[in-house]
């Protein structure tokens, strides 16, 4: 995911400083990994270097001085291009779970036990997300982002169930290859 473009998007509503951008990011994308302040700061500097954002000025607001940033015209154009561009639908199948199953077979481990443990962890996470989304007062952004994760975890789970049922065949295939 492109942090550059997300920060550009947050700047689209008006000039803002690094800390404020971090706060708004965490608010808008509730179930995403929180943005580190250092990352926000370095990303903003790169945007300025590439001519997509510029420094608006400083604002002290009674506290320490903060640098205000705003998007340039190039930045706005780049944002529009990125937002309209499709995300490549799974260009490479790089799945850690699948890799672990295969490695487990190769090294004489217990892939079935691994899949069971993974399933338990997945279910645990799904329960957490369900609690988050069905809490009274949860806003729609929270519900939708939790749903996104839930659906992906559910897809993983279904894949694991099918794989667990076909482990014998897979083991034979991997061992002979």
């Amino acid at each position, binding site marked *: 995911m492109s942090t550059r473009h997300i920060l550009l998007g947050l700047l689209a509503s008006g000039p803002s400083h690094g800390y404020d951008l971090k706060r708004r990011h965490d608010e808008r994308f509730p179930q995403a990994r929180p943005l580190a302040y250092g990352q926000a700061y370095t990303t903003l500097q790169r945007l300025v270097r590439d001519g997509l954002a510029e420094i608006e000025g400083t604002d002290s607001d009674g506290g320490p001085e903060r640098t205000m940033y705003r998007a340039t015209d190039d930045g706005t154009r780049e944002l529009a291009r990125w937002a309209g561009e499709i995300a490549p639908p799974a260009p490479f199948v790089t799945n850690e779970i699948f890799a672990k199953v295969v490695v487990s077979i190769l090294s004489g481990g217990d892939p079935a036990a691994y899949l069971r443990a993974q399933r338990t962890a997945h279910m*645990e996470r799904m*329960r957490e997300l369900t609690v988050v989304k069905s809490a009274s007062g949860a806003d729609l952004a929270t519900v939708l982002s939790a749903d996104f994760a*839930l659906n992906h975890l*559910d897809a993983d789970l279904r894949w694991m169930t099918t794989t667990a049922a076909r482990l014998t065949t897979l083991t034979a295939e991997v061992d002979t290859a």
Partner: protein
Amino acid sequence: MSMGHNTAGPLLAGRALVKAHGRTEALRGASVELRAGEILAVTGASGSGKSTLVHCLSGIVRPDAGSVTYAGERLEELPEKRLSELRRTEFGVVFQFGQLIPELTALDNVALPLMLAGTGRAEARAAAGEWLERFGVRGQAESRPGELSGGQAQRAALARALVTGPRVVFADEPTGALDSLASEQVMSALVHTAREAGTAVLLITHDAQVAAYADREVQLRDGAVASLEVTA
């Protein structure tokens, strides 16, 4: 509730349950426990014995072997009349579909368990109306089940299962015939109400997203419990 039982132990427990339908053994020694107020998901592939387990636990069928204990009572020793009464007053059941009487309005369907318990019609209908309100289907009170959408019918069915204030609700694939949005509405209605009222729920599903509403999951495989996971 006046039922004097040990609150530390399970409210409902099935032990080493065996049940065959003809030559196929649906349950082969499944054991499961349900604590008061908890939501337990029973998952497993189709044909793994989920429905039969619920039928045994709710006293709809008697197991061939094993025992079911509810609040200190051994269900297999009770006469059919008492089992009926238990299901009417202490338990609530929700199936995938078909539990509403097609000729009765949604309101009368929900009022029915109260009328069976001896409540007057007007009072029963008033209480039923409140439950429909809670599940967001008050507007469909005078509709027949055939005129309701799948999600509305299931919410009316939930109202009917909960109207008597049961201690356990058995839900057998309650969202099996619904799309994901309707399924979400039904599940959150069920979970919220159950938590509020302290009702235990035994939820049968093959859908992990539905199972995720539960506190705990029991997986059935070939009529026995495959894994028992407990979360704090």
